C-alpha cells in the first residue's frame, strides 16, 4: 500500500461519438492492450493510471471516466463534465462525421464543464491510414491539418493517435496533464478550487485517519 504516492489527482473525461475508440484509448493507457472487439460502453467506465511528468518532477494520478458515445446516454454522461479537469475529445480520422460532431460535443462540454478545463482533440485510428498496411487501407477522411486548424480555432490541444498501435496515446494524456499542471502553477485552479484537481495534501489528511482511528478510543 506504500505505492499510493502522487502529487496530484486529475479527473479526466473522454468523450466523442460512438465507436471512435474512446474505451480503446483508455485501455491502451491503463493496460497497454488493444481489444479488437470491445463492447460499446454503457454509461460510464472508470480507469486510472499514474504518470510522471519529468520536467515538473511530479507524479500525477489520472482518474479517467470513459463515457458512452451513444446518444441515449448523453444525459448520464453529462453529469461527469462538471467535475473534470481534463477532457479527451476523440474522433475517428477515417470517419468525417465523427469529426464534425466534435463541434457539438465541445459545445456540450463547454456548457457543463469548468471553464478552465483543458481539452485535447484526439484524432484516433491513424494506424488505418498508414498506406503500407496491407489489410484494407481505409481512406483518411480528416486531414491532420484540418484537425489542427479546428483545435487552434477553439483553443484545444491536438494530437493524432492510434489506440491500436499505441502511438501518441500516453502522449495525449500527458500533454493534457502538463497543460493542467501549468494552469495550477499559474494559480488558475487555486487550492482545490476545481473539483477535478486534487493535490496530495488532502490525501495526507486521509492517511492520518490511521492515527485518528487508533486513538479513537481514548478520545471518545
Amino acid at each position, binding site marked *: *500500500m506504500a505505492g499510493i504516492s502522487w502529487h496530484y489527482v486529475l479527473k479526466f473525461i473522454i468523450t466523442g461519438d460512438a465507436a471512435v475508440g474512446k474505451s480503446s484509448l483508455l485501455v491502451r493507457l491503463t493496460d497497454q492492450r488493444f481489444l479488437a472487439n470491445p463492447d460499446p460502453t454503457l454509461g460510464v467506465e472508470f480507469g486510472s493510471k499514474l504518470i510522471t511528468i519529468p520536467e515538473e518532477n511530479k507524479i500525477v494520478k489520472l*482518474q479517467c471516466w470513459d463515457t458512452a458515445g451513444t446518444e441515449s446516454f448523453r444525459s448520464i454522461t453529462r*453529469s*461527469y463534465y462538471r*467535475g473534470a479537469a481534463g477532457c479527451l475529445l476523440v474522433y475517428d480520422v477515417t470517419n468525417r462525421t465523427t469529426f464534425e460532431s466534435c463541434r457539438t460535443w465541445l459545445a456540450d462540454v463547454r456548457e457543463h464543464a469548468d471553464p478552465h478545463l483543458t481539452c485535447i482533440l484526439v484524432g484516433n485510428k491513424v494506424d488505418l491510414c498508414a498506406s503500407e498496411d496491407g489489410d484494407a487501407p481505409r481512406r483518411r477522411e480528416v486531414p491532420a491539418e484540418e484537425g489542427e486548424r479546428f483545435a487552434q480555432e477553439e483553443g484545444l490541444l491536438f494530437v493524432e493517435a492510434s489506440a491500436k498501435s499505441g502511438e501518441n496515446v500516453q502522449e495525449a494524456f500527458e500533454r493534457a496533464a502538463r497543460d493542467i499542471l501549468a494552469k495550477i502553477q499559474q494559480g488558475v485552479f487555486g487550492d482545490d478550487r476545481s*473539483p477535478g484537481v486534487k493535490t496530495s495534501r488532502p490525501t495526507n489528511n*486521509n*492517511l492520518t485517519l*490511521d492515527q485518528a*482511528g487508533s486513538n479513537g478510543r481514548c478520545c471518545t
Partner: protein
Amino acid sequence: MEFLSQTYVALRGPTGAPQTALDTISRLSDRLSPSTLLADRRASVLSLKGLARDHKRDVGERAIPGLLEVLQNDAELDADIGKAVLDTLNHLCDTEEGSTEVKELGFKHTDRVLADEKATHKLFALLAADQTFYTRFGALQFLSTLLRNRRQIVQSYFLTAVAGPAGIIAVLEDRREIIRNEAITMLQSLISQSPEIQKVLTFEGAFERLFNIITTEGGIDGGIVVQDALLCVDGLLRFNASNQSYFRETPMAVVLLSLLQFPPNLPTHEPAPQQFALQFWDTQKGQNAGLVIGIIGMLVATKGANSGDLSPFTRCLLEMALASNAPSTLKTQSLRLLPINQSLPLSDILVTTYIPVPETNGEEWDRLEPTTALDALVELILNGEYSGLHSTRRDKEALELRATAAGVFESFVGQNDIRLLILQAMIPSEDGSAPPPVTPLLQFLATPPTSPLNPASVVSTQLAAILFAHLLRNSFRAKTLARSIKPPGAGFDAGQGSFFVPADGQAPAPPQPSEDEDDSPQTLIQLLNEHLSLALLSRSHASSSDREAREWDRLVTAYLTLLSQWLWEDSKAVREFLDAGGLGILVEPVNQTSESDVLVPGLCALLLGICYEFNREPGEVTRATIHPILNRLGIDALMGRITRLREDERLKAVSPESTVLPYPTSPHSQPGLKPETTGEAEVWFDWPFVDFLKSNYYTIQRGIRADPNSLSSSAGQTPETEILVASLKEMMRNQSQEIESLQSKLKTVLTEKEQERKALEVQISQLTSDIQAANEKRQDVEKEQEDLLVLLDELSSKRRRDKDRLREAGLEVSEDEGDEDEGEDE
C-alpha cells in the same frame, strides 16, 4: 393581517355559512395559484397541511397541482412555505401509515407527483442550493418517501437532474447531524440497483464524503450513522466493477483496514498488534465491523488473479478469524470471505492467539505462542474458540464458526498435495526411530469415547472425523497413506479427562486398546472400528435420556460417515475393517427396527453395502460370507434403510452453505427433546458427505443386489484392476492438472511469441523502410553517376573538338586511343 382575513374567508366561505371540508379544500387549493399573495399562499398551504391528516383523499385530489407549483416557485424563497409544502406533500405520498386504502392513496399521490420530472428535479435543486434546515430536511424526507414508493422513476429523474449529484454531495457535507443522517438514509435507496447513479456519485466524490462521516463519527465505534454510511459504501461498490477499480486505488481502501485497527503495512513476519486483536465489542460495533469486513471481502474476491504476496486485506480477514476476540459471527464472516488459493500461505504464516484470563470479564488476556495459521484453524475447528475455553458452546454461532472453518480446511487441503503432506506427517518414520507427534486431529479420532459422554468432545470428534474425511476423499494415495497411520499410545494420553468408565456397572466391557497381545499399536481403522462398536453399545444402553442417546447417535454418525468415505473404492481398507470384526458391528443395528431411528441403521446399511461392494481382497470374510447375511437381513430392507436415510431431515437440510442445524432437527422423532440453551444447534453431516451419498448410493444399492461372484459393479473389476483404475484415475487427475498448467504456460509463451513477432514485424518494417531508403540513395547515386558520365562524355567530345581545332591550327596533338569511334558519337 389582510391575508388572515382572506384565508378566513376562504375557510368560512363568502357567505359566512359553514361549508363542507371539500369546499374548503377546493377554495384553499385555488388560493395556491401564483396570482395570490405569497402570504396568502402560505396560509393556504398551512391550512391544507392540517386538513390533509383527515382528508388525505380530497386534499390529494384538489391540491397536488397547486402544491407542486408552490414547491416550484416559493419553497426556495420562503422557508416557512417551503417547510409546509414539503411536509404536506410528504404526508400525502406517505404509504407507511394507515389502512391499506390510505396507503393506496399514498401511491396514487406519488404517481401524480412523479408524473413528470419537475418536482423531483426541484427537490434535488433545493438540496443543492438551499441551506435552510427545514427545507433540506423536508426535501430529503420527501425524496425518501418517493424513493420508497417508486424508486426506479425517481432514479431515472435523478440522472437527468442537473443539480442531482451536487445536491447529494451538499447534504452529505452538511454539518448538521440530522440533515446528514437523513441524507445517508435517502442515499441508500437512491443508489440501490442503479450502477449509473453509483458511478455518477463516485465521480462526484461520494466515497470521500461518506468516509469523512464514518471517521468523524468514530469509525466502527460509531453508531447507526456509521452503519448507514457503511451500507452506502457497500451499495456503491457491490456489483459495480468500475467503482471497485476506482475505490481500490484510493487511500480509502486502506482506511477500511484502519477502521478495524489493522495496520495496512504490517510485514508478513510481524504479528498483528494487540489493539487489533483485542478490542471491546458491542452489538453496534459488531454490525459496523461486519460491514467493513464485507467490503474488504468484496475487494479481495474481485482482486482477480493478482496472486503472489499475501495482501493486507486477506491477512486482515485471516487474523480476524483466527487470532482476535471479535464476535464469532464476524470470525465466521471473515472465514467465508477468505479467498482460498495458492497465495494463501496457511501453513507458513504465523498467528498469535490470545485467551481470556478467567474471571476478568474479558479485560485481561494471555498471549499464546505463535502458531501457524493452519494449526490455529484446526484448533479452532476441533476445540472451538480460545483454545477450548469455549468448547462447550453449542449455540449456532459457535458451531457455525467451527463448521465454516472446516470448510476452509477442505478447500485448503483440496489443493494439490497438501493433504498428502499432512497425512505423511502422521505416519511413523521408516526406521521407526521417532514416533510422529500425535496431532490434535488424530488424537480426537484415536481417543475412545467416554461415558457419560463429554458433550464438548462429541463435537470435537465429529469435526475431527469431518476433517479427516476431507484429507481422504477421492484420493487413492491419501487413503493408502492413511492406512499406515498408527496413533501411538492412542487413548491414554489424550488428556480428555475421564476415560471410559461404565456409567452404572452394566455397561459393556470397555475395550482394552493397549493390552493387545502383540504390542504393536493399532491402525486408525482398527481404532475407529472399536470406537464405533463402543459407541453403538453405549447408545443402546443409554437409557438415561433421549438427549444422551442423541449425543451417542451423533458420535456413531461421525464414525460411520468417515468409514464410509474411506472404505469407498479402497478394498484394502475394507479388508482391514472386516478383519477387525466390522461386519458384526454393522449387522446388529441394521437389524433393529425402530420407527424413530432412521439414521444409524441407514448409515450401517450403507457401510455394509460399501464393504460388500469393495470387498475384493482375499481374506477371511469374503463376499460369499457376507452375501447370506445380506439375504438374512433382507435385500429390500437394506435398500429401504438407505432410502430412508436419504430422506431424513438432518441430511436433507444440509447444503453447501449450511451444515449447522437447529436442535433438534426433525423434532417429531424424539418429541421429548428440547434445546437446553437458547439457540442450541447441532451438526450431523457436512455437505461433502451428503454429496458423496447422493452420487454413490445408487452404486451401493445395485452392489447389494449383486451376486457374490459378480465383479465389481463399478465396471466388473478385479481388486487389482480396481486399484489400477483408482490410481489411473488419480494419475489422470494429476495429468489434467498438469495439462492445465502447461496450457496456461503455453498461452503465456504464445503471447510472448506474439509480442516477439510483433516486435519483429516492427523491425521488419523498419528494415524495409531502411532498405527502401538505401535503394533510393543508391538510385540517387546512380543518377549522379550517370550525370557525371554524361558530363564526362561532353567533356571528352569537347576535348576532341578542341584537339581537332588545334590540329587544324597545325599544332601538335597527342593521339587518343578511342579516336577510331569518334565518328559514331558525333
